[in-house]
């Protein structure tokens, strides 16, 4: 625990963490100091002047809170007439050259200028002269659109490209009220994290080409989830909306703070994987190329399952821990072999030192925890004599070429139980749609052995059956997810002391030792 210091805020005793600036220290106990340019991941810049606070007996008596560390005994004044007037004055100056085009601005509803105007300003415009005209809808590249007139020049985006991605595409040119954020000629934003500037922008100056004009922020339900784009397990918000007479649709992913996983950011590729959740979905069951009802498909799966002599259950590294355990137990009960073979999910060399991982699956670490084999040799030996391959979300076509798949088809029937229109779904004898992770609850373990839980975000009008239910229908021993969790806690040594039913939002870091002990 960090050391505590006692401050006086507006005359009241407040105990805060030392070593933090006043915005973070006082903010942690629920007292807001308005600010535009400061961001905890980008440090203090001190340009917006919105966080000026009074320090009683201080030298100087007026300081930017972002640049001032909390010190024992400090008397911070936020509610004096002087500070309130400064906040109002700064807001007025922020707004005189702002287009105030909230009705057509995507940021409306989640805009600091709007929020602060309501909270700290509220006065009528005194602007009787023409505002400064600047460039609008500039395509900055990487799907980022910039509006210079809305910009408050807080330089968060500039600092992001300098400090975080270290690519430095953005800068502020010109002085005075001609100052503007721009790119170098012919050098657009070109980094794999560029869309974070849209989240970082406190106003509507940076918008996402993909998202803009699609939804108003206040209509969006913001559900917590985990990105499944790679094995980092970045924490996200799934912003979705079910409009009247329409289905529940995801409009964007946004990063959600988790200091031990992804910090404040996510990569652009992961951010765009929301599209897979909406489109490219396996929506209908098929038997021998013909559309059928889900019930009929389930019956067909049950029939081939009971008739098969030797079954290979192919599990995806994207399945949740619970799904893997249920499939594993089902296989054991039916003398089937489970394989997690999924080499095609790994793009060697694609990862970087920040968030992006080579492994494009979310839960491969659970293979180790549950002792599931994912080697090619293991899969090939399991195929010998097999007459049924049931894939649980595993798109084998990513790992094998057409010829290899054809060879398997010669000997065995392929059943695909999945959420997406993958290659395997196209050719399987039976396809059965199940809920995707955005519609389901589950546990995944990321590349750094951090165990996290995601919950149901999207509720479709016609919800797909979840994968655990299918396993139950095939004769699996667990009636529901709770039973799987109980079993996991009881049988997996690394999870013995973990309450899987109450996983903290920041996740649980498993030690390498715990994971390898069980896998061995």
């Amino acid at each position, binding site marked *: 625990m960090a050391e505590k210091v006692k401050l006086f805020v507006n005359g009241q005793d407040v105990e805060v963490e030392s070593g933090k600036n006043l915005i973070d220290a006082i903010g942690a106990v629920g007292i807001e100091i308005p600010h535009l340019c400061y961001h905890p991941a980008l440090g*203090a810049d*001190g*340009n*917006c*002047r*919105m966080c*000026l606070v009074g320090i009683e007996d201080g030298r100087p008596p*007026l300081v*930017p809170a972002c*640049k001032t560390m909390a010190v024992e005994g400090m008397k911070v004044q936020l509610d004096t007439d002087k500070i309130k007037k*400064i906040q109002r*004055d*700064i807001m*007025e*100056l*922020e707004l*005189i*050259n702002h287009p105030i085009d909230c009705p057509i601005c995507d940021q409306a509803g989640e805009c600091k200028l709007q929020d602060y105007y309501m909270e700290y300003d509220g006065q009528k415009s*005194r*602007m*009787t*002269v*023409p505002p*400064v005209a600047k460039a609008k809808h500039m395509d900055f590249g990487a799907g980022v659109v910039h509006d210079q007139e809305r910009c*408050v*020049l807080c330089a968060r985006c500039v600092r992001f490209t300098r400090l975080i991605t270290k690519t430095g595409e953005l800068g*502020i040119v*010109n*002085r*005075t*009220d*001609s*100052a503007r954020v721009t790119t170098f000629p012919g050098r657009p934003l070109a980094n794999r994290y560029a869309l974070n500037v849209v989240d970082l922008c406190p106003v509507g100056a940076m918008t996402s080409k993909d998202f803009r004009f699609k939804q108003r922020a206040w209509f969006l339900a913001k559900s917590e989830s985990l990105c499944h784009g790679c094995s980092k397990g970045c924490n996200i918000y799934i912003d979705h909306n079910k409009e009247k007479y329409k289905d529940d649709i995801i409009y964007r992913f946004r990063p959600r703070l988790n200091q031990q996983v992804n910090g404040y950011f996510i990569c652009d590729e992961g951010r765009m994987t929301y599209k897979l959740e909406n489109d490219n979905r396996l929506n209908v069951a098929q038997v021998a190329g013909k559309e059928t009802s889900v019930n009929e498909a389930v019956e067909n799966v049950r029939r081939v399952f009971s008739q098969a002599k030797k079954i290979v259950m192919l599990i995806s590294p994207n399945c949740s821990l619970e799904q893997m355990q249920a499939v594993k137990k089902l296989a054991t009960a039916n003398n089937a072999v489970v394989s997690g073979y999924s080499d095609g999910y790994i793009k060697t060399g694609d990862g970087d030192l920040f968030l992006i991982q080579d492994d494009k699956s979310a839960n491969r670490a659970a293979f180790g925890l549950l002792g599931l084999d994912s080697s090619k040799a293991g899969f090939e030996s399991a195929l010998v004599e097999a007459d049924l391959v049931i894939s649980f979300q595993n798109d084998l076509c990513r790992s094998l070429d057409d010829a290899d798949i054809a060879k398997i088809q010669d000997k065995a029937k392929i059943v695909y139980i999945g959420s997406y229109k993958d290659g395997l779904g196209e050719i399987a004898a039976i396809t059965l749609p199940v809920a995707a992770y955005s519609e389901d609850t589950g546990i995944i373990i990321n590349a750094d052995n951090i165990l996290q839980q995601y919950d149901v975000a999207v509720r479709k009008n016609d919800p797909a059956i979840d994968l655990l239910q299918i396993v139950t229908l095939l004769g699996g021993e667990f009636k529901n997810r709770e039973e799987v969790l109980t079993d996991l806690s009881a049988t997996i040594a690394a999870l013995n002391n973990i309450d899987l039913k109450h996983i903290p939002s920041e996740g649980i870091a498993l030690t390498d030792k715990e994971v390898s002990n069980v896998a061995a």
Partner: protein
Amino acid sequence: MQVKVLSARFDIPDAHKIEVAKENGAYATLEKVFSMQPIEVIELVKQSGLRGRGGAGFPTGLKWSFLPKNNQKPVYLAVNSDESEPATFKDRHILVLDPHAMIEGIIICCYAINSHDAYIYIRGEYTTQVKVLQAAIDEAYAAGYLGASVCGQDYRLDVTVHRGAGAYICGEETALLESIEGRKGQPRSKPPFPAVEGLYGCPTIINNVQSIASLPFILTNGADAYKAFGTEKSPGTHLFGISGLVKKPGMYELPLGLPLLEVIEKVAGGLREGRTLKGIIPGGSSTPVLTPEEAQTVTLDYESMAAHKTMFGSGGIVVLDDTVDIVKLVENLIHFYHHESCGQCTPCREGLGWMLKIVKKIIGGNGTTADINLLVELCDNIEMKTVCVLSAACTMPVRSYLNKFRHEFEAYVKSDVSCQTAM
């Protein structure tokens, strides 16, 4: 009234050349300097009472003593030659007419603060000055006053000239450091102060050209000789640039403490025939204006200016007579500071442009009394809310014109009202 301390060699032909400068006393004091301990040099400068000549008037010796003790990092000297304040034209004379006085001063200062690298940040527009200065530095290197062994001592000193690119803000000491480091010239938040964390993160002293050029005289003749000029709290001499509507505008060296009006009359030749005094800008465009009544009792020193709620500034005196339109003067003034705002802090970036547009509106005959009141309020709203004092350098004088010459603003507003009713 005029004296010859800083300007002693100004009238000597070719004094910018090292032989001529040396014949007339340049570099003569260095032997004495190197026989002293650095701390003794600092003490002597403290005793002389020399105050920073860049405008703020901070005691030079005291500034040097703020350097951290037991410092392991290099110490830098940055000489501020970014003289850009409107009505200020003193340092340019030193740079062209006696650059060796400044180089000698740099050697003295660096020895005192234990610095081996000095940067001269020179205003980009000073193209003539930079040539003369660089030639003088080259001469000083050739003569062994700069380089690996200064005056044969075991003391290295390198001097680098860094040309600005034309931004007034780079005269602000931390913006100056940013610019030397190759970044956009924008002031840094303080603390940390440059004496602790300045150029390249190292302790740095930033002194004005005239402060540095004053050092050889002090070291040669002692603190008392320097204090013989000026007043108790404002000792020494100063290069005053007197401009505006006087008969003999120009640069004059004067001891501090002389009566302002007497100087204008006797040194600058007084007002043109038939004209009356409207006001005096005492120390560069950023200092609040003095009315003729206030000017009666003002003397040219820091304490008298402060007592009259203005500032000594940079010694750039501008005399305004009855032909001056104060509202247009204010427009010109805000135009300058608006143009030169670095654009970093919201109040200065947005506010000065707003003020300029309001003044233009008033001049255009579309102003109202509310606009005048808004100008006054904006001065308060902007001032001292920013990282540096550029915005205050605009709002302080503007407020003084609004307070002392409000009737001129109202005349613009009222003439418009009568026009409208006539229509």
